[in-house]
């Protein structure tokens, strides 16, 4: 009898340690969100490289825990907490930027450097969201961190949010990556709304061949210039251009392969899973998260507006034959290469032989530089 009672006591005590005893409605909602992300990635093929780690991370982070087990992402010294430091302290984003640099071919931009300006114009999305976030009652630092979602660059958003508003990091990161996956849904209506049929049919001149010397010079000159203007952006800009140099130099193929392959894959896995795990229900399910998601969508729309309208404005000063198809204006956000793909697909809808992909890659990669510069400016003013 005593033995049975003891067993029952033990089982009862053990039950208190289980997730079933500690579950709340918030946990269930978050787990469902995580599962939904995985569903979108697996069945719809929407950004699977990001949504699967983030989705699974959300599930990991929302398993109800008995506090003090030292396994949660916010419990100091736990494995997840140690991995999360890469997000919290901002180590992962520069490493991802190095990989992006090693994967990116800036030829389209070098052959037609005026496309750089579209990458600058699209950064209005960041500051449009910044103004809106201030109006919704966020403080300047928080508004800056939210605004960067409009740069459509996950690593930059994480880097800046970690410095300016660590409490909002989970919501900002998930929002940034979700909207990056939704670029093909958000941008086309805005692009169609702002362009005429005639404009959509504009054929751009074929890009000229770019010499290897120009390609090698680009990361060096690009870094020196941007870093001198915005030193606070050095972690991102430095790694981006460094990654590109090891690719273009032609003598560090092994380094380039590692940066653009295994290294970026490892960091993507770690960043995805820890960002997901950081969205614990008690920290994530708040009104501020809802506002962040609304502002994120708004920032993408503003960025697309600004990019397309800037091209139309720019065309007023360009000669016939040199005009830019406004459909590549949306690619000024740095969601590489999704935004460029959207430009291409919309262009093909109206002219089956007008391939805009290579042209759109110019503003697309300029957007990466532009958003890193904008992040540096926000950091300098608000950190």
């Amino acid at each position, binding site marked *: 009898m005593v033995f049975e009672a003891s067993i029952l006591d033990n089982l009862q005590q053990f039950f208190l340690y289980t997730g079933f005893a500690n579950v709340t409605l918030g946990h269930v909602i978050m787990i469902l969100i995580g599962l939904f992300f995985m569903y979108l990635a697996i069945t719809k093929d929407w950004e699977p490289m990001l949504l699967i780690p983030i989705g699974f991370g959300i599930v990991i982070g929302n398993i109800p825990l008995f506090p003090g087990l030292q396994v949660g992402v916010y419990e100091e010294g736990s494995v997840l907490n140690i991995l999360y430091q890469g997000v919290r302290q901002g180590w992962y984003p520069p490493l991802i930027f190095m990989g992006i640099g090693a994967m990116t071919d800036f030829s389209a931009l070098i052959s037609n450097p005026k496309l750089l300006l579209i990458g600058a*114009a699209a*950064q209005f999305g960041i500051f449009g969201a910044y*103004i809106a976030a201030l109006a919704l009652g966020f403080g300047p630092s928080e508004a800056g961190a939210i605004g960067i979602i409009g740069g459509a660059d996950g690593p930059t958003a994480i880097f800046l949010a970690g410095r300016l508003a660590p409490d909002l990091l989970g919501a900002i990161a998930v929002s940034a990556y979700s909207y990056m996956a939704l670029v093909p849904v958000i941008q086309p209506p805005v692009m169609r709304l702002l362009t005429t049929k005639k404009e959509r049919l504009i054929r751009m001149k074929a890009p000229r061949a770019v010499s290897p010397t*120009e390609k090698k010079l680009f990361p060096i000159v690009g870094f020196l210039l941007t870093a001198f*203007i915005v030193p606070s952006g050095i972690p991102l800009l430095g790694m981006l251009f460094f990654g590109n140099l090891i690719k273009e130099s032609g003598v560090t193929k092994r380094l380039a392969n590692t940066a653009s392959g295994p290294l970026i894959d490892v960091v993507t896995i770690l960043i995805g899973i820890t960002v997901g795990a950081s969205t614990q229900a008690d920290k994530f399910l708040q009104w501020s998260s809802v506002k962040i998601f609304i502002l994120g969508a708004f920032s993408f729309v503003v960025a697309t507006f600004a990019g397309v309208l800037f091209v139309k404005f720019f065309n007023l000063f360009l000669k016939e034959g040199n005009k830019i198809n406004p459909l590549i204006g949306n690619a000024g956000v740095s969601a590489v290469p999704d935004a460029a793909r959207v430009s291409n697909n919309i262009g093909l809808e109206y002219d089956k032989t007008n391939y805009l992909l290579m042209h759109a890659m110019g503003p697309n990669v300029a957007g990466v530089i532009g958003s890193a*510069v904008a992040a540096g400016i926000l950091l300098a003013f608000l950190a």
Partner: protein
Amino acid sequence: MKKFYKLTLLLGVLFCASTMYAQNISDMRLNEVLVTNTEGFEDDYGYRSGWVELFNTSYGTVNIAGCYLSTDPNNLTMYRIPKGDVLTSIPPRQHILFWADGVKERGTFHVNFKLDDAKEVLFVSTDGKTIVDRVAIPQLDTNQSYARKVDGEGSVKQESIIYKSLYKNMVAKANANDTETVEGWIKTNVPTPSTNNLTLDGESKGALMKEVDPYGLFLTFTAMFVTFLSLIILYVIFKNIGKFHIKKKSENAVKAMEGTGKSDKADTSGQVSAETYAAISMAIHLFMQDNEAHDFEDTVLTINKVSRTYSPWSSKIYTLRETPQLKK
């Protein structure tokens, strides 16, 4: 020549390494000195004595173990800061206090001299020769300290020719018994041991921005201007690099044409059209065909068996390395 490059590289690395080392210790500054302490701060033993405060001006941790404190320029190694104490690692922008009670047995931060008759205090590097910082102590009242107005800022540099002449002036000023003596230093009746000499306004940049720019328009305008400026400059530079490249390419093309003795004008646009490529390809193809320069492949496939030693480590069945494919 290769040896020269290697030697230069080695010297460069050594120079950088030595500079990095020097940067660490040289970031330390004497920050505040109190000679006679009867009412102020007590040490861990409950005694009051004079003290010397050091400040780490850098944004990295500096370990001062092995450095020296002295009051005599002719004996720079009066007190050696012991190694092996974790507390000698000074965090970024933080202070450390040394008690000048003359009883070094009380621990790392109790030096073996007193400040009563001291004319100056010197902080010396681990080599026992390089003076990192020194300050001439003026005539101070009881419980009055001599401190930098802002932590780590003000005169006093490492020993150099310029410094030596400046230092004479400083000593003269320090002994002049003025309230403010040397540039950046001040006599104060409110000593601040182990804390900031000047408490800065704690308002964050964000809070200031909220006051200055509540609607975010100023920041938006500034940031967009800077972003555009950066990319416009980049645009101008690469526009010109591109032009230069095209010009050079066309010059090379002209030279090549002149070499062949043909008078046709070279294409100076720097762009080769797809039609040109197609024409060149067709010409090469016809040339090969006419001269029978290209043989026909005999289309014989040779399959050689590749023998591999079996190992479970390389077995796909055992290691299950197949990636599942989504069926739609």
